[in-house]
């Protein structure tokens, strides 16, 4: 019994079909709704509809004291939770002028870089699974479980960390953590050969990603795209290098940049970035100083009135905390500038004219985490 609704003739001769690449879709990595206008296979226009996992982080910040907003930070972008923790703590320390001991800075950098590797592992492998290769997803997760074990020993949680405190970190890292990290890094370097054989030299992957979803440098500038999506288009902008914070100036690492700006370029930038993160971790482990891991900080801090903007680099791009404080224990306004918000909006400019299959590939290469857009 086919229930043919009344077919009004206007819909017959119009060739444009509207498809909901909707909230519940295997390739949207969360609840992202892409409203596509299609002419057969070709996308005419794409309108991302967001807000399906909007939880009101910024409203919560306005009725909590400064310390209580810490768990929220790692739930904004749960794949780089430690990086967001570090960013929030450094923003408030900058306002209050709290001095963080050297060892705490090193521990923060080590844990953030480990978190960046685990985030890239998931981002790349989920993107490759969207294109159709399921085995790398299993390999990637296997490596990621190792990182989660190492971080769990110190921070206590696997995904939504709350490890940093104002003035330092919560627990100290011991020799076992350092050896575990070194063993993991040697193992991951060996695994990179498998990934390159499995993905980079795979003819199907190359055909699906070469020359697809190109973000020209000019469009990236207009839309405020940051992170690996921008570095794939030829602009060497990495907050750790351009606007150094914490102890990053002390390490030698390069920013991987590619010129083509297509989906393959973004993938290669992320893979090269993992190697840079490993280099940073090794240098940080070698130069790990002894000393306290937390400065003497009063139990409730109240930063002086005024505002401050602190930018740092998460796995997806440049994140920024714009904090307005009125001198009391409760923040007046915390605005989180998240990279995926601008990275996703670029899709409306680069998707029209591609096929649907390329839309899935481009969306995966932008590596979007939806609660980071919806906050």
């Amino acid at each position, binding site marked *: 019994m086919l229930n043919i609704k009344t077919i009004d003739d206007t819909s017959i001769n119009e060739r444009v079909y509207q498809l909901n690449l909707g909230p*519940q879709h*295997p390739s949207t990595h969360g609840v992202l709704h892409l409203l596509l206008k299609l002419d057969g296979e070709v996308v005419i226009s794409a309108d991302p509809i967001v807000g*399906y*996992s*909007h939880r*009101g982080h910024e409203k*919560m910040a306005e009725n909590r004291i400064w310390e209580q907003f810490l768990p929220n930070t790692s*739930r904004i972008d749960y794949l780089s939770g430690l990086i967001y923790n570090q960013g929030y703590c450094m923003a408030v320390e900058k306002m209050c002028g709290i001095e963080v001991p050297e060892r705490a800075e090193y521990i923060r950098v080590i844990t953030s870089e480990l978190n960046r590797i685990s985030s890239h592992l998931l981002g790349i492998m989920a993107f490759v699974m969207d294109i159709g290769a399921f085995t790398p997803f299993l390999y990637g997760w296997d490596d*990621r479980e190792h990182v989660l074990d190492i971080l769990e020993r110190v921070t206590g949680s696997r*995904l939504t960390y709350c490890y940093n405190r104002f003035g330092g970190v919560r627990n100290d890292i011991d020799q076992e953590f350092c050896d575990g990290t070194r063993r993991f890094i040697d193992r991951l370097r060996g695994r990179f050969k498998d990934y390159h054989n499995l993905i980079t030299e795979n003819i199907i992957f190359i055909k699906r990603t070469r020359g697809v979803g190109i973000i020209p440098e000019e469009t990236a500038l207009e839309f405020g795209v940051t992170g690996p999506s921008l570095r794939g288009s030829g602009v060497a902008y990495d907050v750790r290098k351009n606007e150094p914070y914490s102890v990053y100036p002390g390490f030698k690492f390069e920013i991987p940049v590619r010129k083509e700006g297509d989906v393959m370029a973004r993938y290669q930038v992320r893979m090269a970035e993992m190697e840079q993160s490993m280099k940073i971790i090794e240098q940080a482990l070698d130069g790990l100083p002894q000393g306290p891991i937390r400065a003497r900080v009063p139990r409730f801090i109240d930063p002086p009135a005024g505002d401050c903007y602190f930018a740092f680099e998460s796995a997806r791009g440049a994140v920024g905390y714009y904090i307005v404080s009125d001198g009391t224990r409760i923040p007046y306004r915390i605005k989180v500038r998240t990279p995926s918000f601008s990275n996703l909006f670029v899709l409306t400019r680069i998707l029209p004219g591609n096929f649907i299959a390329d839309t899935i590939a481009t969306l995966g290469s932008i590596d979007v985490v939806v609660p980071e857009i919806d906050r």
Partner: protein
Amino acid sequence: MAVKECSPVYVPHAERSLETKGSPAILGFAVLQDLLNLARVNSLWPMTFGIACCSIEMMAAGMARFDLDRFGIIFRSTPRQSDVMIVAGTISHKFVPTIKTLWEQMPGPKWVIAMGNCAISGGPFAYEGQYAIVNGADKILPVDIYVPGCPPRPEGLIQGLLQLQKKITKGTIDANRRAEKAARRAKK
């Protein structure tokens, strides 16, 4: 602008939770249903429906180390082929109609697992003036199993799924096993 008192608990329409207008099987005598439950239990196909942080732990449970495949649990992406809806993450107001559509589009015997504190009671985002989320999946769905944690560890999710299996077979598997053990002990 008057202070709008936003109700802490979001109650959609009249009925509190979506009553599933389900009719029991026509030929539904007990032994046949138990037999069928055994078959259903060993191939629970959940729908990939990750909303937020818990979706990553759900994926971790599906991957190599915690491997859901050994329980016959394969993630299906369409509601048409899935039996279990694992609500993994925070339910926002904007998402409620979609969840109800997906729930109604799932066929046959179906169950709900509320994974994570957000799906149980709003979790870390439930407070007095919260305007954006529904405090718990049981406000809109008939939830069978609650898996606490923020996010729960993959082992927690696996225990939730095993608990669901026990609930489906109404403990007949365990009951039989206990009965046999008691019989053997009595014989000794």
